[in-house]
């Protein structure tokens, strides 16, 4: 199952799920975490709104397409040399 899936897929999944479930777990264990101040605003705007919702996903989708393009370029160069 999933034979041939590029390794970067599993790395991306680990980053995205790791971030989300780490902060869900922290919310379970630290009372009032969303409203604790971080960088001058309630922490939930940083770890959930800005990073969890937007930045992490832009990063993961970028590394997914970029790493595949790099891999294909390398493969094409290797083929051309042969």
């Amino acid at each position, binding site marked *: 199952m999933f034979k041939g899936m*590029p390794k970067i897929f599993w790395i991306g999944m680990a980053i995205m799920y790791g971030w*989300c479930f780490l902060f869900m777990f922290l919310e379970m264990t630290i009372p009032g975490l969303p*409203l604790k101040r971080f960088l001058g605003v309630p922490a939930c705007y940083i770890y959930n709104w800005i990073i969890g919702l*937007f930045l992490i996903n832009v990063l*993961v989708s970028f590394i997914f397409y970029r790493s595949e*393009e790099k891999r294909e370029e390398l493969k094409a160069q290797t083929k051309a040399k042969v």
Partner: protein
Amino acid sequence: MGVNPIVILGSVLYFAVIFWIGWSSRKASLNASDYYVAGRKVGAFVNGSALAATYFSPASFLGLPAFIFILGYPFWWALVGIIGGMPIATLLTAAPLRKYAPTSFTDYYADRYDTKWMRLVAGIPTLIGGLAYVILSIVGTALFLLAILKLNFTFSVILASVVIFLYIYYGGMVATTFSTAFQGIAMTVASVLAAGYVIAHYGGLNGLTDATLSISPNFFNLPYVSAAPSHAIMASWTGVVGFFFVWHFGFSAMPYTVVRFFTTQDIKSARRSVFWAVIIGGLMYCGLIIIGTGARVLVEQLHPLMQTEGIANAMDVFKHMQTAYGVAGASVTDYSMIAAMEALNSPFLLSVVAAGGLAIAMATAAGWTMVLNILLGRDLMGKVFGSTLPEEKPVMVTRVMTTVVLVLCMLLSFNPPALVLDISGAAFVVILCSVGPPLILGIWWARATTAAAFINIIVMTILSTGSWMYANRVLKSAHWFFLSDPANKISTPHQVYWVFVGFIFFIIISLMTKPNSEEVIKKYSLDIRPDL
């Protein structure tokens, strides 16, 4: 509250741009390939924007702020789950399906599972989900037309259906891809601008948070950290995690987004289009979180109707809208997003938001109607029942199907069965647990079998639909586990566990049944994976 000429002007400008795009691309949709898959010549950014506009619907634009309004901060995780599911599609389905390059959603099922009857079986949950989505899109368009023109809801539904009908009838996939790309930008600009207005009004995020807490003290409460949860459904972590997963895998496997992977120029564009869709959709969702968080406090502090005698809170405002404009069924709470914008008393903002709302509703209706009319015309009439008409006159057949689908959905939209986001959640779970496993595991698991695909689709469609309807009827909410003791209910939003059960069930049945031929597995599973 009367009709505002600036709001009408914004909507007229939006329709003018859509009409111009449709007119400019009219010659491009004269043959079947252009009509169905836009001739496979759409670039990454355009396709990414169209992907975002198609995937996100009034369920997002109206429904998510309404659910944050009702359920509080814990529901933010549902939005994180939706956007978090998008990058997964890049390698899981977008690249393999573009490499395989089918025309319709059911092509893959018929080819991978080696029988034309898979088109019919895979078509059943697709039809259920598709009709639900066209209904919620008509309701969404109608609510925005009501906000713009202050028309009665019933008349707004008829007008919305006519607008969507004309848009798809003369467009096909070419017009809908380019105009949908514009709609993707319009909805994101509207959402981000509205969020900017909300933050500016309260003088920053701290001011917004304080104002929200002054009206809803439990808004930011999570399960286990407070005696009073933000809402009964969010009183346990099954509710929070459940909502995270309801829409999470949709971008990888829902028919109306999967077909947009077919329209790209090549695999590279398919992968890049997901990146652009994440940026456009992610920005829109950042805006929706702010709007949903501020909706109650904005309505209760600033909405003009709060001055009316007998109106004491936000729910009274919505009840007034229900009475004054005949908004039917449960959908009146979906008006909370529009009410929050009305509260800010900026005709310019309301005009941009109304244009964005019309954009997102029309884009989704168009995307789903295209899926349904290709399913009913080309796939079922033509490929399953042998009619030559869809091949000879594809545009005519597709237009007839468009008419049938939209008339049926318009009749069902007069009295919406639930909030738009509830209709969306039900459609997602039914489709993801039934046709999701045969699609994803069909690509990535050589052992996936035809018998498992048949059994999984039929069994999971019945179980997920039945349990959702049972919970909604008996327990008064589809978000409780359907077999719960009414005195001690367990939160399982939209019976989301069926998505995971579906994958396990599909694997077990596949291992118990005869594998497909080596030729089929090679062509439709091994060969469409990346060349490592």
